[in-house]
């Protein structure tokens, strides 16, 4: 029955929105929509009439959503609450994960909980993916720096590749610094005009 709840995912990051949407659909929620940035947020939401809205905590559109708490002529379907009011542990976990959720009037918190928990786990998974990607990119950049330093040593000192690498590593160990930092210093030293 809960699978009939309609859920709207609002996220400026289309990749993250897709991950959250897929998680919800895989859990059996069939009525999931997603939108990115829009200047017509309130009317878009009213057209979609979701029961639950999942939005990233950092999204500037959250302030616009807060107006939907008000009962005024402009708002046909007031939002009853920000999930923060329901469950202390859940809200702390969701704020830390960067998820916020809004719910229309009349929905009991046990019906919302699995949806918010799914969003939290998907946000965390997305974060982990992003961290891995950033680390992989950093490692690639490090490797390029080391290769460049090695090349400079080979060219100017007449070393072969293995000797150049050994020299870098020895210096790093002696100075208790990272290999990439030593490589960086080598590159800078060769760039200096003396």
């Amino acid at each position: 029955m809960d699978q009939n709840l309609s859920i709207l995912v609002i996220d400026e990051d289309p990749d993250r929105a897709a991950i959250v949407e897929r998680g919800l659909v895989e859990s059996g929620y069939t009525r999931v929509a997603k939108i990115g940035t829009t200047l017509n947020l309130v009317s878009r939401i009213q057209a979609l009439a979701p029961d639950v809205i999942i939005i990233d905590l950092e999204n500037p559109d959250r302030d616009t959503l807060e107006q939907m708490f008000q009962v005024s002529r402009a708002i046909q379907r007031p939002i009853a609450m920000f999930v923060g009011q329901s469950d202390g542990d859940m809200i702390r976990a969701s704020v830390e994960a960067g998820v916020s959720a809004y719910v229309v009037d009349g929905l009991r918190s046990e019906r919302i909980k699995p949806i918010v928990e799914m969003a939290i786990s998907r946000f965390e998974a997305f974060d982990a993916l992003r961290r891995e990607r950033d680390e992989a990119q950093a490692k690639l950049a490090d490797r390029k720096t080391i290769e460049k330093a090695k090349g400079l040593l080979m060219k100017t000192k007449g070393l072969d590749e293995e000797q150049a690498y050994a020299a870098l590593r020895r210096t790093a160990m002696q100075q208790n610094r990272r290999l990439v930092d030593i490589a960086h210093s080598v590159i800078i030293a060769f760039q200096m005009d003396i």
Partner: protein
Amino acid sequence: MTSAALTPVRCGFVPLIDCALPVIAHEQGFAEQQGLALELVREASWAAIRDKVAFGVLDAAHLLAGIPLACAVGAARAPQVGMLALMALGRGGNSITVSSALYQRMVEADPVAMAGPRAQSAQALRKVIDADRAAGHPPLSFATVFPVSSHNFELRYWLASAGIDPDLDLNLGIIAPPRMVESLALGHIDGYCVGEPWGQRAVAKGVGAIIATKSDLFPAAPEKVLGVRTAWAEQQGDVAEKLIRAFVLAAQWADDPDNRETLAALLAREDYLGQSDAAILASLRGEVILRAGEPATVLPGPHVFYHWQATFPWLSHGHWLMAQMQRWGLWSGDLAERARIVSSVYRPDLYRRAVAPLGIPLPVEDMRVEGGHLQPFQSPAEGGGMIDLGPDTFMDGRLFDPARSPV
């Protein structure tokens, strides 16, 4: 002092000119001087910064003055968490902007009101609204930045002064400041009330005109505060006092005319506002271009950070904000209840104790009747002598007595 001895404090801010005090406390070393390692975290929305303070992700924040009060009573569905407004973060900065088309209609509808004192422009808007209704046209749409913002309360005060009901005679919504100008340009809204530099931006882009500024409406209106969780302040009382001192020293620095160019350059940085420093400097100096093609108008008392007791957490500010929440249906209660709530959020006693080592002049009273002064004036100081206070006239000439005025 070595960095190991510094106490870390995570402080959130929203990129607006009045985030100057946390920025200066950090950049000019006032926080470090007080033994704090201040970490600044930029936030994109008031809802996010409120929730992060409420749930302990941030220790402190640059908050709309209405937010700690709303949290105290759960108004506007804020999470009900005890928060303190440790001090105010300055005066000034807001303005009401309308689209070029609406401006033209207002001038045609009531040229006399539009040529008079700026706050009277609401009379012209009233005529436009009446004409639209008679013709069966849809209502105009305006926006502010948050339900419990001073912007919302100032805009409503201005509308109501001309007999316009903000909830019935027009659509009044909420839009994040960086999206205001585009919303106006695309015709999604007809006007807005927002902090600088977003009013100036509409004028510069040729899509709107500024028809009134905070100094025309209620120049002493509470704006932003330094907000913390009550539980945090109870556990970290000495840290809270150090934070207050660092911010007051930052306010003194920020008000020095010799520092304004440095301040503008700092705020302009990509990690703070990410805007041109020339525009920020003009706004700091109160040199505002109201309409495209006109020379700048110099506003009286633009951004004030320290003088006129701009950092003092007046109980009467809390009362005025609660009265506005009551007026617009966000909260209801009697005067005694209001006083109890305000005293649990605004703590001038903590502020006085924190700044005592600085030896700065302080008012005798913790609250005062707001309004009635067109010019700067003086009031008795604690321990003898006088303090300087700034203009505080309401646009309709009324007085707000925190002990008696229900709304």
